[in-house]
């Protein structure tokens, strides 16, 4: 059988054959219209509803994750606030112990000072001895002008002399007394100064306590906000967490640079110790050994920081009794010092090996060995770096703790964002599927529009005839009634619903 394209020919004329095929197809499609519509509607509804269900599930997961993130954030914030308050209380306790514990002593000092001052004041108020009253009489007699009588004259002279001597003596005594009073007053000055200093110190301590109390008030306000789970507290904590994440990440990157330098210092000499021809997987054993040493240093540093309660990565260390904790601190410090010493020695060995290799290379290249005297500065520099870097790496524990703590929040936020995006995408795909179904239905109707048009014509013709009959009947019976036109789109909508 001949074909027109992919269809077998029906008549001799291809055009006619094609036309007949088109008509047949349209008729077939028209007959299958309602089942096709139902099928498409069902299919699109399956897609939409299943994806909506999936999306709702994802949204639920996102909500749970958000709740968990909120809990984690609040818990972290609460812990931080508690730590701050705790630390402030510790500081206040230290200050109170240091300053106010000695308050009775200060009071005693002040009392003693006051008693001394009182005594000195009492001593200073002693009136200097005055001339006796009879001196005035004698003075009056002595001031009588001597007449010609020599006896009277001599007597008066004696009286005058005695009085003058008495006067001189009393004046001397007065000067001594005044000097004593000055001395007493001089002794009072350091006492006054000491009291002033004590009082200033007391004032400073009280001001400091006042300042710390205000700070505690602020921390307590924050704590209260966190406890109340206010949005402001959430926003603050979230922003703080992000900042911490990036800052600690940057510091860790810098530390990573330090670790790489450290690694390069010890990788070559490690090959002298563990051999340069052994491999674990694709990596040299000497390189792995170098890395292990650096990792051990970092671990020791973390334990050191933990034992000092600077970080709290391992709560068990923080909760140890002080004696054990300090023992751990000394052990970690000793290990770190030993490792630093080993690194320093390795750095020295590296310099020697590098020099030997350079000499060999020159010898193999036929170049005469360099006559420049090698400086010891690079070697010393390497040794110092080898010794210092392990101690510097110790401080990695602090940003590491911040990074781990903030990473929980950041990871949670990222996961929540991804779930939200997934839920949105699922809903979008569901809607796309649904409207694609609608589009297919409309396209289907567009393809068979001649049949639909014909159906419309026939239906309207029939309805007109029927209307006319009905009108006639109605006219005959009651009156006129109009029939509503069938709208295929409305039908589609209903089906979709």
């Amino acid at each position, binding site marked *: 059988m001949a074909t027109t394209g992919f269809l077998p020919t029906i008549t001799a004329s291809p055009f006619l054959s094609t036309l007949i095929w088109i008509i047949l197809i349209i008729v077939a499609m028209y007959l299958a219209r309602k089942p096709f519509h139902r099928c498409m509607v069902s299919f699109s509804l399956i897609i939409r509803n299943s994806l909506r269900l999936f999306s709702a599930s994802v949204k639920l997961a996102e909500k749970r994750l958000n709740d968990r993130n909120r809990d984690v954030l609040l818990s972290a914030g609460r812990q931080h606030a508690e730590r701050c308050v705790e630390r402030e209380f510790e500081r206040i306790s230290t200050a109170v112990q240091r300053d106010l514990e000695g308050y009775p002593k200060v009071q005693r000092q002040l009392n003693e000072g006051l008693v001394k001052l009182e005594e000195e004041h009492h001593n200073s108020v002693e009136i200097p001895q005055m001339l006796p009253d009879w001196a005035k009489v004698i003075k009056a007699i002595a001031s009588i002008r001597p007449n010609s009588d020599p006896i009277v004259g001599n007597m008066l002279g004696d009286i005058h002399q005695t009085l003058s001597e008495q006067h001189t003596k009393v004046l001397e005594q007065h000067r001594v007394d005044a000097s004593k009073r000055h001395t007493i007053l001089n002794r009072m000055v350091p006492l006054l100064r000491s009291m002033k200093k004590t009082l200033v110190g007391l004032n400073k301590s009280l001001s400091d306590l006042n300042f710390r109390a205000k700070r505690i008030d602020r921390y307590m306000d924050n704590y209260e906000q966190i406890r109340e789970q206010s949005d402001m507290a959430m926003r603050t904590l979230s922003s703080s967490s992000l900042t911490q994440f990036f800052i600690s990440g940057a510091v860790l990157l810098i530390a990573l640079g330090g670790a790489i330098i450290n690694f390069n210092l010890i990788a*070559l000499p490690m*090959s*002298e110790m563990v*051999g*340069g*021809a*052994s*491999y*674990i*997987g694709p990596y040299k*054993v000497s390189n792995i050994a170098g890395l292990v040493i650096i990792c051990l240093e970092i671990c020791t540093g973390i334990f050191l920081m933990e034992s000092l309660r600077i970080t709290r990565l391992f709560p068990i260390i923080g909760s140890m009794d002080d004696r054990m904790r300090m023992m751990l601190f000394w052990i970690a410090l000793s290990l770190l010092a030993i490792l630093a010493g080993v690194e320093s020695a390795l750095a020295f060995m590296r310099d*020697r*090996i590098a020099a*030997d*290799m350079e000499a*060999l*290379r020159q*010898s*193999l*290249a*036929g170049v005469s060995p360099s006559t420049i005297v090698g400086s010891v500065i690079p070697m010393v520099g390497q040794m110092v770096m080898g010794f210092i870097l392990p101690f510097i790496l110790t401080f990695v524990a602090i940003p590491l703790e911040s990074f781990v703590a903030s990473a929980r929040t950041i990871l949670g936020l990222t996961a929540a964002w991804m779930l939200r995006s997934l839920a949105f995408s699922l809903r979008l795909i569901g809607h796309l599927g649904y409207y694609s179904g609608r589009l297919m239905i409309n396209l289907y109707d567009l393809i068979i529009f001649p049949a639909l048009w014909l159906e419309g014509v026939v239906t309207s013709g029939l309805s007109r005839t029927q209307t006319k009959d009905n009108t006639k009947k109605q006219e005959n019976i009651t009156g006129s009634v109009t029939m509503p036109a069938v709208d295929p789109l409305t039908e589609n909508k209903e089906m979709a619903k």
Partner: protein
Amino acid sequence: MKSFRIWIIGFLILLMTGCSQQSNRAKGVYMLLDTSGTYAVELTKARLIINYLLGTLQPGDTMAVGRIDTGSFSEKDIVAKVTFDVRPSVANNQKRVFKNNVNTFVTGVRQSSYTDISGGMLQAIEYLNESGSGNKYILIFSDLQEELAKGYVRDVPFELSGFHIIALNVTKLRADNQDPKKYMTRVEKWREKTIKGGGTWRVINDLERLDNILARG
């Protein structure tokens, strides 16, 4: 507890397997030096190549230098051989000693009447197989013109699986200049032998391009 032990044993086995890869990664280099009359003058260049190789090879690698003379399939034709210690400082000293041995040989070399390249190849294959190196290289410093003395039979097929054969400084003879086809036929003959034996073949005539000579096969 039992499963924990199994894990530990598994981990140790993994570690041991990792550590036992030493011989697989090590390089083994055997350099054949042609001492026949026409080529003996080129040996100073060979010394430079050997020095370059000494600078390139790492602790754990193996190196040997063999002579191509009338009958090269003999241990006596190995001029110098060494497997470098795993410690870099010891390996450096071994390199110095190796270099001195080669220098002594090059300065006092006596020209041979015949050129038994195949015998040298067989000796090199045997030596490198014994060394257990993972990457095996045979460097032939020769013009590839084989001349066997009467009575010497060298129709043994080479077993070159895993070997990289590199011909260095393949000089053109006077006859090659007159008929370049001879040169090409000579090189092609060795290439075919190598490929047939399962090895890879390379020719490096420009000694300025020695860098990464051992990097690829």
